[in-house]
């Protein structure tokens, strides 16, 4: 980050309302947007960006008030992710994943565990990373007295070097049992590799991780009581909860693209020769394109917000979550994912039609929005999200919980 000065927020009190937090996020976004294109090109490790998230208080948004957290809920967190993603999709992703990893204790852990984790996280303004790519089945967990030892490799992580703590995931040796645990990111044996070099989301530090005997107490294994996992339906809310982070990430990037393009069209685009218009903003087809893209984006945003509220009813009473309720929530999130994927690819691809040929200069970097969406929307195929929705409306079938549904 080229131009971060010590943040004014350090001395300011926390916002006291959801809207206040969204406004705070917009202020952070304004700082990020000043050099977003240049930072995308440089693709440096985002230490300064994470500093900004900490200074502004956004990292503790979901944390308990009594320990210095913001005491907000998921609908606000999603809006904050969207706001940040308008300026910088990478930082939006880092923050959104952080919220989920921070919440992982609550999703999977016992009450004692998550109360402890959330208190520590809020007090220390921990930034969470994760090494939980579930398509790699190559982290083995072995027991060594009262400790667990993680060994293996994950091909993708998030946050890695910029995180204070990392959520690890592995399979207990000789079993089918997955174990989650939170360890300090500087734990011995935990090595983050510098091999994330993708066309988009370039600052997310999503490279591979090696776990060479990373040690953590058995007692920190989330959700285990006397070394036996205590399953709840609520565990499986991890997927729709993070997928809705993705949705808001895409919608934020799309909104940022549209705003950036509108500024360009307003201030720099030439009108076309036959138009009889002096300015590009007066061309009917330019106006029409903005109207069409905006309308679709607003619909997707409304769906994302509504589903966040639907999810909040589940998060509000975790023990009451039934398989049916979880399944319907997952289907709704799948629909939002389908719509958000479509609209964000469309918006980020079509803005060029209303900015014009000169806007393709690399210096402008307007393609970062498309590259960011294009990269992250490959996380899991959207066709299978549509399948969840289609099956539900056709046959009433709810998706079986997996790592992706």
């Amino acid at each position, binding site marked *: 980050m080229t131009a971060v000065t010590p943040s004014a927020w350090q001395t300011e009190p926390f916002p006291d309302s959801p809207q206040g937090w969204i406004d705070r996020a917009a202020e952070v976004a304004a700082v990020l947007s000043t050099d977003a294109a240049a930072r995308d090109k440089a693709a440096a490790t985002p230490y300064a960006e994470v500093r900004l998230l900490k200074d502004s208080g956004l990292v503790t948004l979901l944390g308990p008030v009594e320990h210095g957290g913001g005491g907000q809920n998921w609908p606000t967190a999603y809006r904050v992710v969207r706001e940040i993603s308008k300026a910088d999709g990478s930082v939006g992703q880092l923050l959104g994943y952080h919220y989920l990893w921070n919440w992982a204790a609550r999703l999977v852990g016992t009450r004692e565990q998550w109360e402890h984790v959330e208190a520590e996280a809020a007090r220390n303004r921990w930034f969470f990373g994760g090494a939980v790519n579930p398509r790699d089945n190559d982290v083995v967990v072995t027991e060594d007295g009262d400790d667990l030892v993680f060994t293996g490799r994950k091909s993708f992580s998030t946050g890695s070097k910029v995180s204070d703590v990392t959520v690890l995931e592995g399979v207990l040796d000789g079993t089918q049992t997955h174990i989650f645990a939170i360890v300090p990111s500087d734990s011995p044996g935990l090595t983050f590799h510098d091999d994330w070099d993708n066309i988009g989301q370039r600052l997310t530090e999503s490279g591979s991780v090696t776990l060479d005997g990373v040690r953590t107490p058995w007692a920190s294994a989330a959700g285990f009581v006397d070394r036996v996992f205590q399953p709840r339906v609520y565990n499986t809310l991890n997927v729709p909860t993070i997928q809705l982070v993705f949705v808001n990430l895409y919608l934020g990037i799309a909104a940022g693209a549209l705003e950036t393009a509108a500024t360009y069209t307003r201030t720099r685009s030439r009108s*076309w020769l036959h138009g009889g218009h002096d300015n590009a903003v007066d061309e009917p087809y330019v106006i029409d394109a903005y109207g069409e893209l905006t309308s679709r984006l607003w619909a997707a945003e409304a769906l994302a917000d509504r589903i966040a509220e639907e999810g909040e009813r589940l998060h509000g009473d975790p023990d009451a979550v039934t398989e049916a309720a979880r399944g319907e929530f997952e289907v709704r999130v799948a629909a939002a994912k389908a719509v958000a994927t479509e609209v964000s690819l469309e918006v980020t691809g079509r803005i*060029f*039609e209303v900015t014009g040929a*000169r*806007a393709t200069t690399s210096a402008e970097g307007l393609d970062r929005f498309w*590259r960011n969406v294009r990269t992250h929307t*490959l996380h899991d195929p959207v*066709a299978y999200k549509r399948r969840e929705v289609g099956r539900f409306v056709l046959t009433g079938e709810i998706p079986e919980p997996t790592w992706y549904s």
Partner: protein
Amino acid sequence: MTAHVTAHVIADDAEALETAGRLAAEFRAGASERDSARKLPHAEVERLSASGLLGVTVPADHGGADIRHETLAEVFRLLASGDPSLAQIPQSHFVYVNVLRRQGTPAQREFFFAEVLAGRRFGNAQSEAGTRHVQDIRTRLVPAPDGSFLLSGVKHYSTGALFAHWIPVLARAEDDTLHVAYVPREARGLTVVDDWDGMGQRTTASGTVKLDRVEVPADRVVPHHLTFQGPQLHGAVAQLLHTAIDVGIAAAALAEAAEFVRTRSRPWFESGHESAADDPLLIQRFGELGVQLRAAEALLATAARTVDAAGTPGAGLTEESAAEASIAVAAAKAFAASAAVDIGGALFELAGTRSALDGLNLHRFWRDARTHTLHDPARWKVQHIGRYLLNGTLPPRHGLL
């Protein structure tokens, strides 16, 4: 004068196609690396010259193959399927060969067609920045007492100029009419600046040409404005070649996606298939994009045949046949633009997570398509097509339709 060039002379349409297919395959091999390193294709441009492809529109009575537009479009489509930047470099070359075919004096034709058959290249110096719109040209040919001219101005987006032996410069005469001055690349007062920094079509070297009181003999100036005083195909042919480039990008992107899926993609775990290439949802998307690509190809071929069938100025070309050719090309271009951008983007959803690795440089198709399709706005093509369809309004005569 320029370095000595020797070029093969291509005999006919079939040889042109065969040559283009062969070169496209050669060029494909290094295209990604040239793009990512922004390494200009000097050697490849020389290969193009040597192959004789640059001479295929020279009239038969000057020794050229005078190939059909359908063939020329296919040549461009093939080249673009190998390397889209490389395919765009000769686009203005053919445009300015056409200017000579239409408005050159016998002496100019004799001289320049010989240059072209020898493999020499025309670039372009057309576009100006900071003016109200793309046809607002301010570069001037100022008459000197000896009958020659002095040419001053600044041109942007001058695709091919850096590689050219001759740079045709669009300029206004004293009476404001449009002329083309053919200026040698090494003329005193002419500078080519390699400042093109587009996110796509990165190795076209579409940089800046600066002209500072460049001396131009009268016999190097061609009255291009006359082309637009009657029915003309100048715009249709220029746009046809751009269309072929977009169709070529689309085809290359889809072929690359298929290759990637067959050889590198993992199946999605819910698909129930061992191989990604057997996933019916993936196959369906390939099918949809295949239909879109075939439609673009069919429109390109139909448009080219419409141009061929329209007649030539003074020999059968009418207001109506010229308009139909322009509209057919405009329809093909509008459609091809969407197809190229769509397929360039869809490649990733087909190929899956691993395809986003920067090192694979698979985003070059989308970047090339997105950049090249903005050359002139598709929305205005659509508007002219609508006027023609609804009210029978013939499209305006200019170089972009």
